[in-house]
């Protein structure tokens, strides 16, 4: 597999079509991260499109010495998501969690109810805590990379994730208790 830096060099030397490789490589994590941050699966691809176009435009300014391409790209995705939330006034609760599939067995129904509670708890988190949790849990990014993307210290990220997890755990315990 060609490394990111090799592809970037080719793009900067005029081979625009090579950029397609970067899009194919990162489209899934970028779209997933945006979808989970802005809580809207319908517009996440539009925002992701803006992210990749911005990445292409800014590619000459990418400095590998300051961090990997994925960190740089996720930073653009983070900023575009924040802008999208502000611009389109997507309130965290504007999109209710997906309806559970009521056709399944009782266990599945309970699980779906709990998923809704977790979605609610996720969307009610402080934005910085939510971003840290989304990147750590859904994208599996290391703390160091998240700290770089957020522009804060690793300790801050650890604390944000711990608090976010605590909130989710409390929500889950409460919901599970109610159901039982």
């Amino acid at each position, binding site marked *: 597999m060609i490394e990111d830096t090799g592809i970037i060099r080719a793009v900067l030397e005029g081979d625009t079509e090579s*950029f397609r490789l970067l899009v194919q490589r990162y489209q899934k994590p970028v779209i997933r991260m945006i979808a989970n941050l802005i809580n809207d699966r319908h517009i996440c691809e539009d925002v992701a499109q803006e992210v990749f176009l911005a990445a292409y*435009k800014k590619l000459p300014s990418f400095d590998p010495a300051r961090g990997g391409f994925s960190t740089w790209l996720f930073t653009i995705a983070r900023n575009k998501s924040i802008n999208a939330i502000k611009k389109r006034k997507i309130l965290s609760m504007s999109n209710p969690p997906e309806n559970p599939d009521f056709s399944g067995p009782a266990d599945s129904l309970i699980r779906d109810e709990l998923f809704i509670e977790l979605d609610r708890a996720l969307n009610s988190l402080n934005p910085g805590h939510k971003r840290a949790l989304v990147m750590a849990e859904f994208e599996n990014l290391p703390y160091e990379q998240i700290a770089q993307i957020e522009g804060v210290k690793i300790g801050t990220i650890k604390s944000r994730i711990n608090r976010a997890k605590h909130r989710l755990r409390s929500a889950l*315990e409460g919901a599970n208790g109610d159901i039982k």
Partner: protein
Amino acid sequence: MKDNEVYESWIQKKRQIDVSQYFTDRVMKDVYQWRQSRKSSPFTIDRLIELISFHPLAKFGLVAAGAATGIVRLIIIINTILSNGVING
């Protein structure tokens, strides 16, 4: 149902995402359109901002030019005040 199991399966669900079949093509279309627009109008405000934002030398040049203008303006003001003072005095 154990909380940990629920949490883990929720995480797995959130990791699932479907990407449209033509997403890459749409991005590449945007890229080519942008390149084309740059070619047709090479000197736009956007290009100027881009040039200044992405090139450290251009950024330094702009800041240096601003600072030089400020100093020159200050010298002119001081000079005017002093000459007025001399005339009035």
